[in-house]
């Protein structure tokens, strides 16, 4: 046994004692492949949220700017457009990584089921195509198109966000609840790709993710302006910049617990092992199951959980009497890593409920004529709400993905069968990926922060200096031609900008 196998075992053991027993039989490439997928998917999914939800948020702000002739709103829409340019670029490339990884990491899945699960990806590709096209038109169309037509260029992006999310979630729903093919003597026959595209489980999974995307984007953008207000920048710019994304986040956060609940409906029949792990049900109770909050699963026993009687059955089974089917009904080799699934699932729910309560409180107090934006504690909470929404989203994905294990296609194909025959050398690729994603994260943060700083200093255009800076001092003009960024109302901003560069040059 080589070192990577030991490492794989150690990592597995941390998540589940059962898994460590099985790890000896796992191919050496499995664990790094899992980590690689988790890293790249977990990273991409956050940017995908912005790709899905940001256009609609920008649209509302831009619409307000045009309808009410509101320069603050127009300015915000324009800045958000530039931020989305950065986010969408790294979102597009990190999504490409996933396309490659489908084949590089899971050739067993793609070779066997590529023609079963592929069609939704084709439609997702169409949606992505349109999104990229209209992104280009919108971003570079400022001041070059009639304003109303220009505004309309955002709408296709909001729509393709829906289509794209649906298509991708279709595939994941299929992995959880496979349909659209038969297996005869080990051969895949009678492939029905349209049944996969319109599989019954997809709509609810889509709803959950789509609403989650609006929570992540809405809270994250609002958080930026909450931080600004905490620093004493209490102008209309910050208020408006907070309220529009916050309104989106509000609707999403209020709806999400219900969407999530309906998604879970029928899980006991669909994926009993996942439900048992979610609920930490080690045995099937005689009567109604309690709701287990917290707790870990060690050597087949639950430790440290807080039980609330009846509630488990009421929520999971919609029944006062029916118990949650426990892990005792699942063969050992089909059990997912229980503790991780359970804790991730409950973290998602806990954070979701917290965010729901916060937005409900805000609007309730507003109705009672109290403005929570004056409250520093609330602003502090809002400042971390974006991160919380991201954690909840990641936790949800960990819960559903880890909870599906050991299957890659539930009940049909094990993850071990899908993994490539690569050796533990995959760990090296994984290490390089950590560096790459770390670098991209760092680059994005540096660039976005510097954009915000320059905007605060009054710069409307953000020229990138391709020439030595001294030239700016000589001529007080940017070296960089950024005419493609100027809008028709940019006159005043231009003056501010050149004043800004003069200052910077001094």
């Amino acid at each position, binding site marked *: 046994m080589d070192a990577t196998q030991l490492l794989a075992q150690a990592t597995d053991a941390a998540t589940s004692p059962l898994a460590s027993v099985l790890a000896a039989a796992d191919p050496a490439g499995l664990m790094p492949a899992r980590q690689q997928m988790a890293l790249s998917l977990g990273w991409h999914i956050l940017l995908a949220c912005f790709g899905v939800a940001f256009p609609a948020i920008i649209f509302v702000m831009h619409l307000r700017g045009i309808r009410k002739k509101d320069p603050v709103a127009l300015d915000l829409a324009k800045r958000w457009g530039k931020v989305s340019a950065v986010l969408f670029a*790294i979102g597009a490339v990190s999504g490409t990584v996933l396309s490659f990884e489908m*084949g590089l990491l899971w050739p067993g899945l793609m070779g066997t089921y590529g023609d079963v699960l592929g069609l939704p990806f084709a439609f997702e590709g169409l949606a992505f195509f349109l999104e990229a096209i209209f992104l280009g038109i919108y971003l570079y169309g400022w001041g070059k198109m009639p304003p109303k037509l220009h505004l309309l260029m955002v709408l296709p992006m909001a729509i393709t966000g829906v289509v794209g999310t649906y298509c991708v979630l279709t595939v994941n729903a299929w992995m959880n609840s496979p349909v659209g093919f038969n297996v005869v003597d080990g051969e895949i026959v009678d492939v029905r790709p349209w049944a996969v595209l319109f599989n019954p489980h997809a709509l609810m999974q889509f709803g959950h993710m789509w609403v989650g995307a609006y929570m992540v984007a809405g809270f994250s953008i609002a958080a930026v302006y909450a931080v600004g207000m905490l620093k004493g920048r209490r102008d209309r710019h910050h208020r408006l910049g907070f309220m529009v994304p916050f309104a989106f986040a509000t609707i999403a956060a209020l709806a999400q617990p219900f969407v999530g609940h309906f998604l879970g409906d029928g899980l006991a029949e669909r994926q009993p092992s996942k439900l048992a792990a979610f609920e930490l049900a080690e045995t099937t109770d005689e009567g109604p199951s309690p709701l287990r909050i917290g707790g870990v699963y060690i050597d087949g026993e639950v430790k440290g959980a807080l039980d609330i009687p009846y509630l488990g059955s009421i929520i999971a089974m919609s029944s006062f009497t029916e118990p949650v089917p426990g892990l005792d009904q699942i063969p050992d080799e089909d059990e997912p890593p229980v503790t991780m699934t359970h804790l991730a699932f409950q973290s998602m729910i806990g954070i979701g409920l917290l965010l729901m309560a916060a937005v409900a409180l805000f609007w309730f107090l507003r109705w009672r004529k109290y403005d929570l934006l004056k409250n520093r504690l609330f602003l502090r909470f809002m400042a971390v709400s974006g991160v919380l929404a991201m954690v909840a989203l990641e936790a949800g994905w960990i819960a559903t993905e880890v909870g599906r294990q050991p299957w890659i296609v539930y009940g049909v194909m094990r993850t071990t069968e899908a993994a490539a025959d690569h050796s533990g050398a995959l760990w090296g690729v994984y290490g390089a990926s950590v560096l790459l994603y770390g670098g991209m994260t760092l680059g994005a943060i540096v660039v976005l922060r510097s954009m915000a700083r320059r905007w605060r200093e009054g710069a409307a255009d953000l020229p990138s200096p391709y020439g030595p800076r001294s030239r700016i001092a000589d001529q007080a003009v940017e070296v960089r031609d950024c005419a493609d960024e100027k809008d028709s109302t940019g006159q005043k901003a231009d003056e501010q900008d050149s004043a800004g560069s003069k200052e910077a040059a001094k």
Partner: protein
Amino acid sequence: MMTLEFAVAAALFAGVLFYAVLGGADFGSGFHDLTAGGSRRGAPLRTLIDHSIGPVWEANHVWLIYVLVMWWTGFPESFAAAMTTLYVPLVLALVGIVLRGASFAFRKYSETLWQARLFGIVFATSSVLAPFFLGTIAGALASGRVPAGGNGDPWSSWLAPTPLFAGAISVGTCAFLAGTFLTADAARGGQVALAARLRVRSLVVGVVTGAVVFAALIPIEHDAPTLWEGLMSRAAPVMALSALGGIGTLVLLWTGRFGPARLTAVVAVAAVMAGWGVGQYPWVLVDQVTITEGAGARATMQGLLVAVGIAAVIVAPALAYLFYLTQSPRWNQAAQGSGAEQPGRAMY
């Protein structure tokens, strides 16, 4: 010949062509960016590159996704075979693609010169590496180095004459396309000196690339006999068309007709790619798996054609609109107008 499988394969390969031409021109811009010189000397060219590929690179990039999806859905086993064999160049190409896209976006909004330099170098270098490794993948497929069952040798499958030549040709065609496009853009923007500089570059790159394409034919005869046979028979007219396009482009560039030169350059590159496709027909994996053998389920193939049909109706007009806008006088006027006042433009 016009079977369902063939139609899907043709649609897939059309995606390869579009990616080679449109995505290729974006990658090629990176080559010119890399060789543009120091920050002062290179400023006008880098600005032009930003302006030219900024609005379109993401849309052009989607052709790659289209190709991958068509491949794994239409011909899943050959996709898995290629992925388990060619993972080294695939990962390297992927790293290039990721770094190119990210650092291009970062550079556009960098605040200081050193940041712009850092992101610029990463952007430019990765723009050269990505097409090289993508080319080696094409070469490996075309020379029959991917076994049907997958898990071929991770090194000898692409570190061989045909794949390496394909990589070099890929870098060259990208730079050639980008050169002619940028020359036309600069000329249209009234940047005479920049256009003159780009014209010389494009001529040099064009001659070198053409020479490499024909030099590649020497090892291909022994290294990839099946492809060679196809190139010398069925694909011969297409290769001749490519040569004509290339020579035509050089003539047009020489005589300063930059607008039409773009068209002939596209013909040259598209024909060289088409020559590869026609040359290796009917194989998906040369000498291993044919289009018919590799095809996925019928219903899925039909579904893919529906998707392609919808794309033709919805995506094609949108894409045409994007290109129309980026080429329209209104979108270029602004750049031109303020460019004239800028010392950065008048410097060289």
